[in-house]
């Protein structure tokens, strides 16, 4: 997409569509053109031209500062939108996308139809795009940016196809790419016959400039200085000589382009093995229709997962709006779930909040996370609670899912006591159905499931972090007689202590000078009761030192 930045701006600001403008960035004290819209390009203004020169060519030229972050964000959103064609979409540079359409093209009626549909939709979004299909990402890149748009290429493609032997394609790819030519996209249909066979690809690549190999500018200029202007010129050169002169990169790119070397595309989102989709005949906005489609998708997905013996842990419902944006909802479960009714309830409230915009033409439902599902779950509350029947876990799971989905993941938890002297370390919050395993070996790690001693009285509520208080206490080792907590003054009537808790020396290293204040220090804990009988757990941080003002904290409340 050669004019992605300007197209993006024109998409949101209709006023800019009818006048020439460019985006600019500052370089060495000058403003340089980053991207130009089609009106500006018609006047011969292109990227890398200083703004002053451009305005000399076209005095009415308007300019905006470039915003690479917004461009990248918009490109990412577009990449997500492209998931309607294939689950495997990668972002390439600042203005390109790779779509791995292996095995997907026939769903849209072949590569031709898919490409035509893609270009038509992109054009309706106001984006100028070039697309090309090839067996390797390298070749697709080269065709999209350098090949397509010239009549010569099209005819070459046709003749090459005619003479090519029909080799089975190892993988088919097409890339939608920036092209440096300024012309409008040609009719898409002629762009997508997939060149087949290595010889054909080599033949097609041969007339392209060496820059089409995705090599660095330095390599490009050096190759051209040597007279190697076309990719075809490189075929004749021994590989060893290429590597000696330019390092690995040129030879590698050449191999990748012709398919000698595999080049994986790193997908933006992990490909979802369990994905079901529903295309609407025409855009819909009604909540009820979307809900009905979700129910149907859930039923299909659950059937598919059930055949695999798996249950959904996370579901991703995505709606493709007609204007090219996405919306969706995610629901997660605490245990693998297969009941469409239960899963539909998790989505029920979220659907109300979804905004279908001008209409939705495609809905997909995926299960990015699934787990082996067995009707008799063996882990869960059972190990820690011998008395809790397995049936209770099954009954609780739907409730926990609903709570988690409304209040945020991980809301419902169990408190697991840990074997630690430090009070705030002696509790861990764990997912409700996670099996509680006892770590073996290292004794330094806290072991769950055991309370150190019942006789050491601990508070009901523990503040983490402890709340600082103003306290008045006789030195060196007495509990406070007065303290102020949350603006209130409390008179201590009775007290017990100190209970001295030293930091766990085996944990952590010597603190640096900066963090010495925050480093754990010995605490002297006191249980105190005020005149109303309310009980607090206070501690003094650090040992008593003459001259130093002791700092007191309130750590908890007793029952």
């Amino acid at each position, binding site marked *: 997409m050669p004019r992605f930045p300007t197209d993006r701006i024109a998409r949101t600001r209709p006023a800019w569509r009818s006048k020439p403008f460019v985006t600019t960035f500052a370089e060495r004290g000058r403003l340089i053109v980053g991207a130009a819209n089609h009106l500006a390009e018609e006047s011969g203004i292109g990227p890398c031209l200083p703004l002053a020169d451009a305005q000399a060519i076209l005095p009415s030229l308007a300019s905006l500062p470039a915003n690479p972050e917004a461009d990248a964000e918009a490109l990412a959103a577009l990449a997500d939108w492209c998931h309607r064609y294939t689950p495997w979409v990668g972002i390439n540079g600042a203005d390109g996308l790779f779509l791995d359409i292996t095995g997907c093209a026939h769903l849209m009626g072949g590569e031709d139809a898919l490409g035509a549909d893609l270009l038509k939709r992109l054009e309706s979004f106001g984006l100028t795009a070039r697309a090309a299909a090839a067996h390797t990402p390298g070749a697709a890149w080269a065709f999209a940016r350098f090949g397509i748009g010239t009549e010569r290429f099209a005819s070459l493609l046709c003749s090459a196809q005619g003479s090519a032997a029909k080799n089975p394609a190892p993988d088919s790819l097409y890339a939608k790419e920036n092209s440096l030519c300024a012309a409008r996209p040609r009719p898409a249909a002629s762009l997508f016959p997939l060149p087949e066979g290595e010889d054909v690809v080599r033949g097609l690549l041969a007339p392209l400039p060496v820059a089409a190999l995705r090599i660095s500018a330095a390599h490009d200029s050096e190759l051209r200085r040597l007279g190697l202007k076309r990719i075809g010129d490189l075929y004749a050169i021994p590989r060893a000589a290429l590597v000696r002169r330019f390092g690995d990169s040129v030879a590698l790119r050449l191999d990748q382009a012709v398919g000698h070397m595999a080049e994986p595309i790193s997908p933006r989102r992990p490909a979802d093995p369990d994905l079901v989709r529903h295309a609407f005949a025409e855009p819909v906005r009604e909540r009820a229709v979307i809900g009905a489609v979700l129910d149907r998708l859930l039923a299909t997905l659950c059937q598919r997962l059930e055949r695999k013996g798996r249950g959904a842990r996370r579901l991703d419902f995505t709606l493709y709006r007609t204007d090219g944006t996405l919306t969706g909802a995610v629901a997660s479960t605490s245990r693998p779930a297969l009941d469409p009714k239960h899963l539909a309830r998790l989505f029920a409230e979220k659907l109300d909040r979804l905004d279908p915009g001008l209409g939705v033409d495609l809905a997909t439902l995926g299960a990015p996370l699934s787990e082996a599902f067995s009707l008799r779950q063996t882990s869960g509350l059972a190990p820690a609670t011998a008395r809790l029947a397995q049936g209770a876990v099954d009954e609780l799971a739907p409730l926990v899912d609903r709570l988690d989905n409304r209040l945020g993941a991980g809301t419902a*938890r169990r408190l697991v006591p840990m074997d630690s002297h430090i009070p705030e370390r002696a509790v861990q919050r764990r997912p409700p159905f996670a099996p509680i395993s006892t770590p073996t070996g290292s004794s330094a790690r806290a072991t769950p499931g055991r309370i150190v001693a019942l006789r050491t009285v601990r508070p*009901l509520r523990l503040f983490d972090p402890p709340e600082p208080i103003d306290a008045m206490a006789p030195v060196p080792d007495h509990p406070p007689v007065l303290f102020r907590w949350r603006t209130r003054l409390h008179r201590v009537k009775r007290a017990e202590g100190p209970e001295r808790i030293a930091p766990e020396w085996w944990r952590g290293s010597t603190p640096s000078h900066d963090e010495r204040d925050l480093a754990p220090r010995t605490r002297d804990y006191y249980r105190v009761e005020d005149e109303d009988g309310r*009980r607090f757990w206070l501690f003094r941080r650090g040992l008593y030192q003459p001259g130093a003002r002791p700092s007191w904290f309130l750590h908890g409340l007793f029952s």
Partner: protein
Amino acid sequence: MTQRQNRHYHPDLRALRARLGALQRLDRLPVLAFGLDAIDTHLPWGGMPCGCLHEVIDRADGASAGFAGVLLARFSERGPVLWLTARDDLYPAGLERLGSAGWTRRLLVVHTRRAADTLWAMEESLRSPGLAGVLAETAKLTLSQSRRLQLAAETGSATGLILRRPPPSAAVAAKGEPISSPLDSSSQADALRADALRADALRADALPASAAVTRWRIAALPSRPAQSGDGFRGDGFLGFSRWRVELLRCRGGRPGHWTMEQNDETGAFTVVAEIPDRPDRADAARMAV
């Protein structure tokens, strides 16, 4: 005493109460004994009825949460229980002491940030099968909200417990006098007064009606200084923690009040005879240093 009074009701009155109880379906509910004879015999059901809503009102934070926790720990013997907490500060080592050993393993804790979420979560949990008890901390509860929860409790298997906590700033302001220091700006004093007013609004007479079957109010009581015979505890040291437990409302029963004490060593609860505490002069003198 209470039982004797019950027996001396007029026969017509007793028949009427039985019919009312049948209408309210309270007599058919399973009952879980509180474990303290004095309280169990006072309650018309001989214990706490399950599958309905109970309300615990806060006068001192730790104590009321402790009492509600004791009830929840009792219900946990019938199955897993849920605690909907407004502040995520529950501490299992402290909770453990409120019930039988290991009851916190059957406890799920859910942290809800907004009051609306708390009530929604409580209703969902009351309606869902598999839970034995649900405890929710909330500052406000209107009559219609409590009716909704009571209906939800009747449909499900769980017993609902509402812990009415004043808003955080007022929780501490409810007791203790404001600091009369010249450093206090007038705005701060105003804020404190507002807090106190808010806390007052939670007093029994100002409390809105609710559909709960019982309503309790709990306050901490100063502990009794340990007996002189005790080798470890003496003057100025903590005695066993004590609560004043008031039963403000009880459907089909009579209000009452008790003093509950927990043995710090064994964790056992007892109801102690209410003897007016004489001021402890020696203690006061020592603390006034």
